[in-house]
Each structure stands twice: as structure tokens, then as C-alpha cells.
């Protein structure tokens, strides 16, 4: 397989086994912040009230966190707001100092935090890029050599000598992302990059992630978007209130994360599934990729292969398996289904499994979509799962519509006086 092919389609890459060298080792990490109940931020106040008790509220952001990340692993850190995931990343990036515990890291590290790598708005893109490279441990000469490819990757050629204060936020994010890419670090720490940017930038990020993955870099991704974790990560970790809830397979973490969200009574914007079933049991429901893997992101135009497996708990003559594809606003876009009957008019016996594979043309607009699943049969056999699946369609063309249709346009200019 050539390098080019690797970038385009990395395929299923085996996650590094337990024998692989360790890239990041964290032991019993503690970090708390002292939040003053009353902020004293001038010498005058301090001088006027020299003995005023200074009261603090201790906030335990991280409470005894230990884990290891192997070299070449794509590791996700998820958690709700305030769970300590960003603090953990800043500790790994050496921006905060831990109260106790140790962090050990192999190789050079490049952080991408709060949508940036740290820019000075008064300097031009070129100057900032070189400065940043040096901060990440490259020599000025090395970074100057990579300057052109950074600017090129960010597609900012004509703005390279513009001060960053005149940049749009999208341009800043693009520049920051390409600096991180070109810094050629061994370990990348990335915070919430996927939440921003237009479709084409997200596509670029996706490609970049696949490429880095193929190059065997260690990547830590902090996010609360489960779709991203499931599509990129080899392993993931769920943080809650500064403690590790779970470390494991991304899919497993996704379920745990959902559970956590429901326990807290907070409405999740993600894959909030409501299950209501009788007489049948859902065994499997997913979007299958070419090689049998589960997909959570699809490029526009890439066919959607839905796969559902239902175990019948009662004898029924037939069941209808139906799907509704809805967009992020929960607007139903398309409904279809199939009636499954027993062979030559016979019954479908209890214990049998009905497997439905559907192939749908992907004319969907970019953004998040859901699939509602319904199974119905006589005698009260029913399954209805609202938002049984959640997936993201990405594409290079931004579209205002909810679907993208093939079209042909013919335009002519004619003289009025004919």
C-alpha cells in the first residue's frame, strides 16, 4: 500500500497491543483550584484590609487520575462540562502544574487548546507560526523551512503577511491547526477541534487525523462529541467529577457517557435513544462500512448501509421493519421499510432473527442526522427506538438545504426584441 493510499483510506488499523511502548503515563494526578470567594486584585485592597481573611473555595478538578496511553494510540477523553477533561489536557500540555502525582510523556508534544496554539494578534501569520514552532521545541530554522507548507495547508497564502488581528476566527483555527500538524510532534493533544470550522475544514481535519493515525502518532482528543470518539479513537476514557469512570472501547464509552447524561437528568444533544419494545428484541442496529465496521460519519454521496438485526420473542406471520431518517432539527426527511414474512407464507418463529440490510442513496445535506427505527407485527410485537442511530454527513460543499439533489441548470441570455 503506498503512502498516498494510506492517507485516503487508512482502513482498519489494529490498535497498539498491550506490549507497545507507552507514550503517556499518568499516576495519581490531583489538581484543585482555589477560587477566592472575594477577589482581591489590587495592592490597594490588600493594603487597606491587610488582615481580612482570604476565603477560598477548593475546586477539585482532578482527583486521583491514573492511566496509560500507548504509543500510536488515538485516545479519546470524554466527559460533561466541568468533568476535568480540559484541566487534564492542560496538565498534559504542561500549561498547568499538578498538585500531586506524576505525568510522564515520551517525545515531543504539540498542544491544540481552546481552538488555538497561542497567537499574538499584533504579529503576522508568518511571525506567529515561527514563534509557535519554537515554543513547541523546533529550531527557528526548521520552522522557517516548514512555514510555506503551514501557510499552504491553512490555505492562507495571500494573508500570510497580515496581522492576526485582522483574521477571522475560521482563519485563525485553520492556521492553528496547520501549525500543530506541521510541528511534527510525537504526541498531539487536541481539545474540541471538531466543533468549529466549515464542512471543508472539518473534512480536512478528518483527513489529517487519518493521516496522523497512519503515521503512528499518539493523539489525545478531548471532546464531548461521541461521534468523533467512535470514528477516530482506539480507546477512550470517561471522566466525571475529576475521576475516571471508565476506560475502554469507544462504543462502550459512548454508552456509559449517555447513561451518565441521563442520570444527571440533562438533555443530551447526542444520541438520546428511547427504547420501547415488546415481543421482539433489538440485537444490532448500525450503519455498516465497507469492511463491516460501524460508521458514524459519512461523506455526502457515500451510500448508507443500514443493518438491523431483531430477535423475535413470539411467533408472528410477518413484521414490518421501518426507518425514518431525520436531520438535526428532528425533521423527518425520508421514510422507508420492508415487510418481512415467513418462508412460503409460514410463521416467523420465536427465537428466529430477522436481519434487514438497507442501502440508501446519500443525498443528505451536511450535518448530524438520526435514524428512528420501528419494528411492528401483529399480536403487539413492536420496537420503536427514537434516534436509534446518529451519524454525521460531511462534504466539501456547504448547503443550506436539508438535502442535496442532482440538478441540471440551463441558462440562456436572449435579446428582448425578438
Amino acid at each position, binding site marked *: 500500500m503506498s503512502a498516498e493510499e494510506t492517507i485516503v483510506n487508512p482502513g482498519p488499523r489494529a490498535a497498539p497491543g498491550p*506490549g*507497545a*511502548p*507507552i507514550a503517556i*503515563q499518568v499516576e495519581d494526578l490531583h489538581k484543585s*483550584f482555589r477560587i477566592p470567594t472575594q477577589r482581591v*486584585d*489590587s*495592592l*490597594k485592597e*490588600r493594603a487597606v484590609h491587610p488582615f481580612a481573611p482570604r476565603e477560598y473555595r477548593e475546586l477539585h478538578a482532578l482527583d486521583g487520575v491514573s492511566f496509560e496511553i500507548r504509543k500510536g494510540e488515538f485516545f479519546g477523553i470524554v466527559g460533561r462540562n466541568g468533568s476535568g477533561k480540559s484541566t487534564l489536557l*492542560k*496538565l*498534559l*500540555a*504542561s*500549561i*498547568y*502544574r*499538578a498538585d500531586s502525582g*506524576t*505525568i*510522564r*510523556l*515520551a*517525545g515531543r*508534544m504539540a*498542544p491544540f*487548546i*481552546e481552538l*488555538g*496554539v*497561542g*497567537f*499574538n*494578534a*499584533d*504579529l503576522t501569520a508568518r*511571525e506567529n507560526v*515561527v*514563534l*509557535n514552532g*519554537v*515554543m*513547541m*521545541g523546533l*529550531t*527557528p530554522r526548521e520552522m522557517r523551512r516548514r512555514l510555506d507548507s503551514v501557510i499552504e495547508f491553512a490555505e492562507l497564502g495571500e494573508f500570510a503577511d497580515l496581522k492576526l488581528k485582522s483574521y477571522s476566527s475560521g482563519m485563525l483555527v485553520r492556521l492553528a491547526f496547520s501549525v500543530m500538524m506541521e510541528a511534527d510532534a510525537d504526541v498531539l493533544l487536541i481539545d474540541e477541534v471538531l466543533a468549529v470550522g466549515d464542512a471543508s475544514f472539518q473534512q480536512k481535519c478528518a483527513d489529517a487525523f487519518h493521516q496522523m493515525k497512519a503515521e503512528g502518532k499518539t493523539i489525545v482528543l478531548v471532546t464531548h462529541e461521541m461521534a468523533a470518539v467512535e470514528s477516530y479513537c482506539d480507546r477512550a476514557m470517561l471522566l466525571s467529577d475529576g475521576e475516571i469512570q471508565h476506560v475502554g472501547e469507544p462504543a462502550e464509552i459512548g454508552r456509559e457517557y449517555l447513561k451518565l447524561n441521563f442520570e444527571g437528568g440533562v438533555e443530551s444533544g447526542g444520541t438520546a435513544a428511547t427504547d420501547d419494545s415488546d415481543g421482539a428484541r433489538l440485537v444490532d442496529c448500525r450503519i455498516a462500512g465497507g469492511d463491516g465496521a460501524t460508521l458514524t460519519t459519512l461523506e455526502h454521496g457515500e451510500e448508507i448501509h443500514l443493518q438491523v438485526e431483531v430477535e423475535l420473542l413470539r411467533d408472528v406471520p410477518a413484521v414490518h421493519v421501518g426507518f425514518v431518517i431525520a436531520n438535526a432539527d428532528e425533521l423527518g426527511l425520508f421514510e422507508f421499510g420492508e415487510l418481512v414474512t415467513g418462508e412460503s407464507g409460514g410463521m416467523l418463529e420465536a427465537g428466529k432473527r430477522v436481519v434487514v440490510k438497507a442501502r440508501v442513496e446519500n443525498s443528505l445535506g451536511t450535518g448530524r442526522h438520526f435514524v428512528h427505527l420501528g419494528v411492528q407485527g401483529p399480536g403487539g410485537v413492536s420496537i420503536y427506538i427514537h434516534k436509534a442511530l446518529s451519524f454525521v454527513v460531511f462534504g466539501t460543499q456547504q448547503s443550506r438545504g436539508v438535502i442535496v439533489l442532482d440538478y441540471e441548470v440551463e441558462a440562456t441570455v436572449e435579446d428582448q426584441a425578438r
Partner: protein
Amino acid sequence: MTTDSRVADLREVRGPSALGGGPRRFFDLLWLMSVTEFKRVYFGTVLGYLWSLIRPLMLFGVLLFVFTQVFKVGSNLVEHYPVFLLLGIVQFTFFQESTTNAVTSVVAQEGVVRKTQFPRLVIPVSTVLTGAFNFCLNLAIVIVFIFAFGVDPTWTWLLCPIALVLLFVFTTAVSMALSVLYVRFRDIAIIWIVVAQVLFYATPILYPVNFKPGGDFEHLLMINPLAVIFEQVRIWVLAEPEAPTIVQAAGGWLGLIPAAVIFLGICAFGAWIFKRDAPRIAEEL
């Protein structure tokens, strides 16, 4: 043991610090930041370098006029009063500009500090280094004046760098303390403007150290480390036979001890407080 090879490459991450990351990276970054900032000031505005020159020259022009034309005392005090005055102003401008810029430097770099790991000390020191570049260019103007006013060259000119290095070290120490204190106490900026103004008059810039209009302030004046440095530069540059040496001005070697103690004390304080607070700057911002 297999575990050994698995963890062989690991290095401990200890969080941000004043100096961490190795000397190579520190100096690379220091140089790059200073030069970038210097270039920005130079080429960023239409008048560029002229701006940084206009301020000390205006001050020089006004003071020269007041003390030689209005009060007519300047030239009675020092043979080459204009050169003496300019020399003092250029040195003090370096001190004042560097420290004033340093006060807000760390906070102004918030975006970088909160997102990147690098030796924090680079920030205030690069501010001082940028000031030093300016100072070197201003020195060229001083040299023109030195020859224009007919000061004879002497071998003691070669000693001046010793005093200027001390000035650089002192300025750096003050900048370090101010930059990190400002993170927590925002009124430092206002306080420092006043203190710098006081220091301007408490340093022999307008008047020589042996100027005794109403009382003998020589010994008191020589408590100020800046006064000692400026006076020594004056002696080495102007080589006036009648000017007192710093030892004479301080009333003997023992008289220099307070200035030395203050100098070392401020250096130690600057280093200590910066080292102490550097790891937490990102959290306080």
C-alpha cells in the same frame, strides 16, 4: 524486563516553569521574540524608529533649554552638560521603557501563556532585550553628540559595558518582579509610573551627584543603584578631573554597601518571585 523498554522514552512533565525546556530553546525563543517585537515597532508604524527616538530627544531638548537658558545652571555644573544630560536620559529611557513595557507583558501574552508550554521567563526578558536594541541605536546618537561637543576620547570608554551590563541586569530583575506581580495586582501599572517618575529625579540625570544647592544629598543619593551606575558611566565617558568618583560621592567604600545590598536584593527578589509564580501564571490569568 519488558516494562523497562516500554517506558524507556518517558520523561516527566512537571508543568510550566520560569526556565524549563533547555537553554537552547530559551535563547532561541528569547531572540526570536525580541527581534520580532523590535521589528514590529520599527516597521509597524510610518515613522518607525523615529518614534522611539523622538521621546528621549524631545525630553533632552526641553531639559537642555530649561537648564542652560532659563536657569543657566547646567553648564556651571558639568563641563559638557548636554552630553551628560543626554547620556543620563538615554540610560534612563532604557530602564523606564523596558520596565513599563514589562509590567503588562505577561498579561498581554495571555493567549500564548494559556495555550502553550514554554519558559515563562522569556516574556519579561525579551521586553528588556527589545529595549536594549533601542538603547544601542540611541547610543549612536549619543556618540554623535559626544564628538559634536568636543569630548576627548579616553580609554575608559571601554569600561562602560561593565556598567551597562549591570544596568541590564537590574532592569531585568525589576521587570521580572513587576510582570509577575501585575498578574495578581493590577494597580501595579499605575504605581510603577509614579515610582519611575520619582526615580527619574532621584537619579543624577538633570544634575550631577556633587550638586549641592541646599544640602549634602550625595550620600543619600548613592543608595540608589541607578545613581551609582549612571555616575560611573559619567566618569568613564566624560573623564572630568573634578568629578568625584563613586567612592568619594558615597563617602567611602562603606557608603556603597546600601546600593549593593539593594541591587542584589532586587535581583534576588525578582528571580525568587518569578520562579515562585511562573508555574501558576496560566491559572491566574
